[in-house]
């Protein structure tokens, strides 16, 4: 027995070492993926041993490169400077055009109570190394937990997305590139809006999966992030379609040319902070002359609750605006012409089936420049929370911080439509048109569609009637000039 063990000692040890490694591998696979948490120690040791050299070399290389390029190799800089200046001029013109589009997009997003993700903070990092293997597309960057990096943060360049943070060490992080075969990114084709999953292949290519073979995908179309993976914000460039072929299982095989040069990355940005906030139309919307004028005019002070209620009871009688109600007035009466016939403002009445709530600060001037827009955008310019998408459609409740709630109930029932009173500029069945339409049209987003919509249930008049006093022929509050249509 001993002679057998002695004779095959090397082989037995080989089998033993292999068995242990296979066992360890099986455990990692069973626990899922690379099981980086349980193998973290050996990875820390390795990274701790290797990356200091990499950092040093990168630091020296960068220093020498900077000295050379900044002080010696300045050939062609003047011509390049001239070209860049010309480019800036072209881009300024382009920027003007794009800003118009962006403003329009914001308004439309506001209409839908669209929630956007904004990149609020990034950390620039230098690529210092890689896994050194074709089969594991990983890079190391010189920023880690000390710089605020965390696992699953998106890594991008100016050209497009790069990958996500996989492991974080104190001063170094491991980034999984998008062309690794274990990575996946929710993507969308820019024009056709087809969604798919971006994956890497063993050869380091990037393919878009899960697009049905009956779809038309042109070569050259841009691919963007869809935001569905909760890692990359929506709309970041991913690449362009390089090749389309029929794949397996009724799906197309779409090869993507990555926008970022994944083979030669030097500097990257890590998105350490994202904000999700409601889109607002105020940011880039031009201020109207009337708004500026209104700012200079004395505003109507807030009324006490009782007075406000009393005023509210007389809503929609004389002025035709329907809602001369304290501080809430401008919100619902931004434009007298903007309210279609069949709309009425009813204080303290909340339709159980349809309310859209917007809060306005107590001190908000009725004639404030952004008040109409606050109503129109569903997002008060004062920074108050905007209309929630979850709110049902059909009426608008405006509440001040002092819990003054005014509900604008939409209805096509004639008897609660004091706007039909003679003299009301909004009288009639057609939605108003005019220069202010654009400001008031989005007043409640999709919910501002006239009540003639077949899917909309009319508000029953009975519950609202007791709380609505007879119309007061005299308007309780005069309309500020700024709210008049231009």
């Amino acid at each position, binding site marked *: 027995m001993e002679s057998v063990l002695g004779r095959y000692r090397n082989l037995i*040890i080989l089998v033993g*070492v292999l068995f242990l490694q296979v066992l360890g*591998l099986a455990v990692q*696979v069973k626990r899922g993926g690379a099981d980086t948490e349980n193998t973290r120690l050996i990875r820390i040791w390795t990274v701790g041993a290797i990356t200091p*050299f990499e950092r040093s070399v990168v630091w020296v290389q960068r220093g020498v490169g900077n000295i050379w390029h900044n002080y010696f190799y300045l050939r062609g800089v003047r011509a390049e400077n001239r070209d860049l200046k010309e480019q800036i001029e072209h881009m300024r013109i382009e920027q003007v055009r794009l800003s118009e589009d962006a403003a329009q997009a914001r308004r439309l997003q506001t209409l839908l109570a669209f929630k956007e993700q904004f990149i609020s903070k990034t950390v620039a990092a230098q690529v210092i190394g*890689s896994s050194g293997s074709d089969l*594991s597309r990983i890079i190391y960057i010189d920023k880690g937990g000390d710089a605020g990096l965390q696992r699953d943060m998106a890594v991008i360049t100016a050209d497009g997305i790069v990958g996500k943070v996989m492991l974080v060490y104190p001063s170094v992080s491991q980034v999984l590139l998008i062309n690794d075969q274990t990575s996946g990114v929710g993507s969308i084709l820019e024009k056709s809006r087809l969604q798919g999953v971006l994956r890497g292949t*063993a050869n380091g290519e990037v393919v878009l999966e899960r697009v049905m073979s009956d779809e038309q995908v042109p070569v050259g179309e841009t691919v963007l992030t869809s935001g569905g993976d909760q890692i990359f914000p929506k709309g970041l460039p991913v690449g362009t379609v390089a090749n389309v072929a029929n794949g397996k299982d009724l799906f197309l095989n779409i090869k993507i040319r990555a926008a970022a040069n994944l083979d030669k990355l030097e500097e990257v940005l890590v998105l350490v902070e994202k904000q999700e906030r409601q889109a607002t139309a105020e940011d880039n919307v031009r201020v109207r002359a009337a708004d500026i004028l209104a700012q200079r005019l004395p505003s109507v002070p807030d009324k006490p609750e009782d007075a406000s209620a009393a005023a509210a009871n007389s809503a929609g009688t004389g002025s035709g605006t329907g809602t001369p109600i304290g501080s809430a007035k401008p919100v619902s009466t931004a434009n007298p012409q903007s309210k279609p016939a069949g709309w009425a403002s009813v204080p303290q009445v909340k339709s159980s089936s349809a309310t859209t709530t917007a809060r306005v600060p107590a001190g908000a001037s009725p004639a404030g420049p952004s008040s109409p827009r606050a109503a129109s955008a569903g997002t008060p310019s004062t920074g108050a929370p905007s209309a929630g998408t979850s709110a049902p459609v059909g009426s608008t409740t405006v509440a001040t911080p002092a819990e003054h709630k005014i509900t604008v109930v939409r209805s096509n029932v004639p008897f609660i439509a004091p706007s039909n009173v003679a003299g009301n500029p909004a009288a009639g069945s057609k939605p108003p048109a005019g220069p202010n339409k654009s400001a008031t049209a989005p007043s409640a987003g999709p919910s501002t569609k006239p009540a003639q919509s077949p899917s909309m249930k009319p508000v029953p008049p009975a519950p609202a009637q007791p709380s609505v006093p007879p119309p007061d022929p005299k308007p309780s509050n005069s309309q500020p000039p700024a709210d008049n249509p231009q």
Partner: protein
Amino acid sequence: MPSTYTSGEQVEVYRFSIPATVGFPLLALFLQAFVPRRFPLFSYLDLPLLVTIFFAMARRNPISGLLTGAVIGLVQDSLGGLPLGLYGIAKTVVGFGASSLGVKLDVENAGARLLVTLAFYLVHAAVYFTVARGLVSLTLNWSWSRGFLAGLANAVLGVVIYFFLDKFKQRT
């Protein structure tokens, strides 16, 4: 010059100083991780494999060879994002094979080193491919042409590196 068969008593066994034993594998791992970012073609080379083969052949001790291969392979694994053990298993086999071969063959000349390195590169690739597909279910495509060309490139580089590393050998 063809490889000559020698008995176990005739071949010389070498050892290395601790700095060389630790330093060269670390240097190989560092270069393997660092250089491909600047020169993507460098990723076809496998410096840790060359170091494993060299140490295994020089020491001519199968246990030492397989342990060297296992350690270098596991460290190389830990630089990547895949489960630990893929390179570990492949290099363990290579280390054992190279040291076993070193006992029986004279692998001091360039021609023998070229052929041995090419052969072990293919063995390494085959073991890695098998384990990656069989145990980890990675999608890999085997390419003979790529494997042969990469093996040849590694073998040529290996011959150069081995001559440099020969200077650090110490007779036992």
